[in-house]
């Protein structure tokens, strides 16, 4: 029992840590620092997944943890670093919404997810419940990053943190099948996105294509 509560505390802290780091992402205004923060995010995720693997003694989760560690915490950030160099992407992030507002919105989102999840009757074991609350807030924050940042890279980062939230939820869900497969699938997805950015030279932002350009391409001019 003591053990259990300890386990609970640890996973709780880790999950909370993820949310915290998501917040940190929100107020980064330099690309490199953002990437580093994301790496940290991935590390923490890896830790919490590993911990879950340990307490649920579900060895297959270790694979997920390893993927998270290697792929997300190392490979992707490095790759993005190089892309940023090679494409000579502007170093600092222009955000569509001011940082302060973003932070406020983030607070609101976390609050919202708490409200929603704490409705859940506690007979589902509290561990899962807390995890879900945190996972939901991580997901929402990731999305928030995606919509408030103009850089392609930072949007990718946002998407990845969103997906970290998913993995957190998946691993938190005790005995959930397909977790490994899903994490693999998502890694591939992200790889695609990164490659896409690289191939299609989407330099600054997703919204580089302006309306007039669309007109030409789509035969939609009036």
């Amino acid at each position, binding site marked *: 029992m003591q053990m259990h509560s300890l386990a609970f505390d640890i996973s709780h802290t880790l999950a909370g840590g993820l949310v915290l780091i998501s917040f940190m992402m929100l107020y980064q205004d330099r690309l490199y620092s953002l990437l580093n923060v994301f790496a940290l995010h991935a590390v923490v995720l890896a830790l919490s997944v590993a911990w879950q693997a340990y307490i649920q003694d579900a060895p297959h989760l270790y694979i997920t943890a390893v993927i998270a560690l290697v792929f997300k915490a190392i490979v992707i950030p490095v790759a993005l670093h190089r892309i940023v160099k090679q494409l000579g992407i502007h170093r600092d992030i222009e955000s569509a919404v001011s940082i302060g507002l973003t932070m406020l919105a983030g607070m609101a989102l976390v609050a919202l997810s708490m409200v929603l999840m704490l409705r859940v009757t506690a007979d589902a074991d509290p561990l899962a419940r807390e995890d879900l609350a945190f996972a939901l807030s991580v997901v929402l924050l990731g999305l928030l990053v995606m*919509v408030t940042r103009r850089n392609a890279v930072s949007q990718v980062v946002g998407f990845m943190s969103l997906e970290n939230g998913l993995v957190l939820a998946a691993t938190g869900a005790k005995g959930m099948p397909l977790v490994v497969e899903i994490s693999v699938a998502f890694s591939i997805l992200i790889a695609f996105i990164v490659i896409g950015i690289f191939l299609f030279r989407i330099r600054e932002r997703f919204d580089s294509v302006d309306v007039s350009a669309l007109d030409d391409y789509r035969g939609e001019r009036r």
Partner: protein
Amino acid sequence: MSSVVLQISCVAGLLGIAVLAIILSRAKTSTTIIYCATTAVSLVALFGSIRFLVGEAPNPSGLVLPVGLPWLGAHFRLDALASFFLVVVNLGGASASLYGLGYGHHDPAPHRVLPFFPAFLAGMNLVVLADDAFSYLLCWEFMSLASWALVMAHHRESGNAKAGYVYLVMASFGTLALLLAFGLLAGPTGDYGFAAIRAARHTPYVATLVLILMLLGAGSKAGLVPLHVWLPLAHPAAPSHVSALMSGVMTKVAIYGFIRVIFDLLGQPIWPASVVVLFLGGITAVMGILYALMEKDLKRLLAYSTIENIGVIFASLGLALAFQANGQKLAAALAFTAALFHVLNHSFFKSLLFFGAGAVLTATGERDMDKLGGLIHRMPFTSFVVLVGCVAISALPPFNGFVSEWLMFQAVLQSPELPQWALKIMVPAVGALLALAAALAAACFVKAFGVTFLGRPRSTAAETAHEVDRYSLSAMIILAALCLLAGILPGLVIDALAPITIDILGGRMPIQANEPWLSIAPIAESRSSYNGLLVMIFITLSASLSVFVIHRFASHAVRRGPAWGCGFSDPTPAAQYSAGSFAQPIRRVFGTLVFRARDHVDMPAPGDVRPARFRIELHDLVWEGIYLPIVGAVGFSSDRLNRLQFLTIRRYLSLVFATLVTLLLVLAIWS
């Protein structure tokens, strides 16, 4: 075999002909074959329905086919009302087919007409026969679709595309209104059978809503102002025998729908309903004929006059509603009979007139009256039958148009029996509107006939015109004869209509057959009576007497000389009164109010050699006041929304995000 089976098999035959037409669309002889076939089938259907209507005690016979809504099947039913409208439809169909035998050969693209013509006929027959909401709407829309295809037959001519488009949209608007009406009648359980609807009790709320929806639905198809805008565009755009069908018959099918729902399915009406119908009818009558008077395109003029007649019919239906709501069966039967009689008459003379317009079109290639004139010399037969049509539609004795108008005025004169003050006041006022419409109609057709057929030809086309082929002529002559017959023997028609009024209203007019001298007396002879036969006989007698006397005693000398031009005999036919100038006095009277008409005269100063200019400015207030704003609104909002097509991915993501957050918020607050 039972009557309804006969009718349905005729419809099947028509559909078969349509398929046949597609198969031999490119064949030379296809025109002849198809129109012969349609003539034959329509005649069979016509006689079947006449036999049913005047046969001994017509009792409804039904038929269910395993098509349409799966759990319901397609119900068809033939009762007195349906059989009467079948008579109208198939008579129009037969005459149009006969006319087409000749006219069709002048069609530039027969393969765009032949398949849809029989389909159109079939559609109209089916609407009248349908006995459940789904089949009714299916056939209704099928009818619209077929007629739309016919309107688009000459799709290369300018303006026809717009005509077809406006028509299709208005038709679909009407169908959706009907759909709502039937949805309301059928209720949430979806009893779409007419029998079930008839059996159900409907609350006043439902009744009112259904009335409004039916006025929108059937009214838009029939051409009630302000839903008429498509009619003067679409009817002229079609080939003339199709225009005749659309104007003379399809509008009647719409009226059938109105009668079927409001009088039959809805049960006992409430009197305020009649006020609405009366009002709309009166307005439509006057507006329609005023539009017609301003028109110089022959076929458009005829289309507008159709609107007028629709108004007249709706007005007398409104009267029938008023009397029925107060349980005055006899008066209701009188008004209702007047309406049905006018339906029949209008189908006669409007088809006749459109045939005439078609003949003029084939002979001269002109629809613009200001390029016609003097055709009476070159097309004697056509001009004679068209003259008959004009006299008939102007409601002059001894022709049929007068009889139905007369019956209607008799119904108006029953208004004192109505208990409601609103109606007491309303009915005579509407009567005044109808009288005005009738007088204006006479003026309008003086103009139509005078400018087109009389005077001197205004173009070489009109000078070199020739009489049309014998099929077209025979079709027109038959209709003219029918106009006269219905005018001098109205008693027979009235008695034939009695079963319908018994079915629908539970009352009937007194039997006319045993009136002396074949005269008609709607209530009692002491009140009012009319005898078309004797009036005709008197006129012929006195006319021939005077002719005899004159030719017996007066001089016979005749000399042809130039017309007296007040010292200056005008050399050019252009100096004749044209359509526009003929309408000028009436335009001065009504135009400024109804059309915001302005005459712009640009008279050069003395010594200035440039020609004087005269321009008329007319506004179609309905179009500019109702339809253009709607078009503008749609365009505006689509422009605004269209920006969403050009957002960036980040913005699209924010849309998604926003949706998610809102939904989550709703969830958080609500549950």
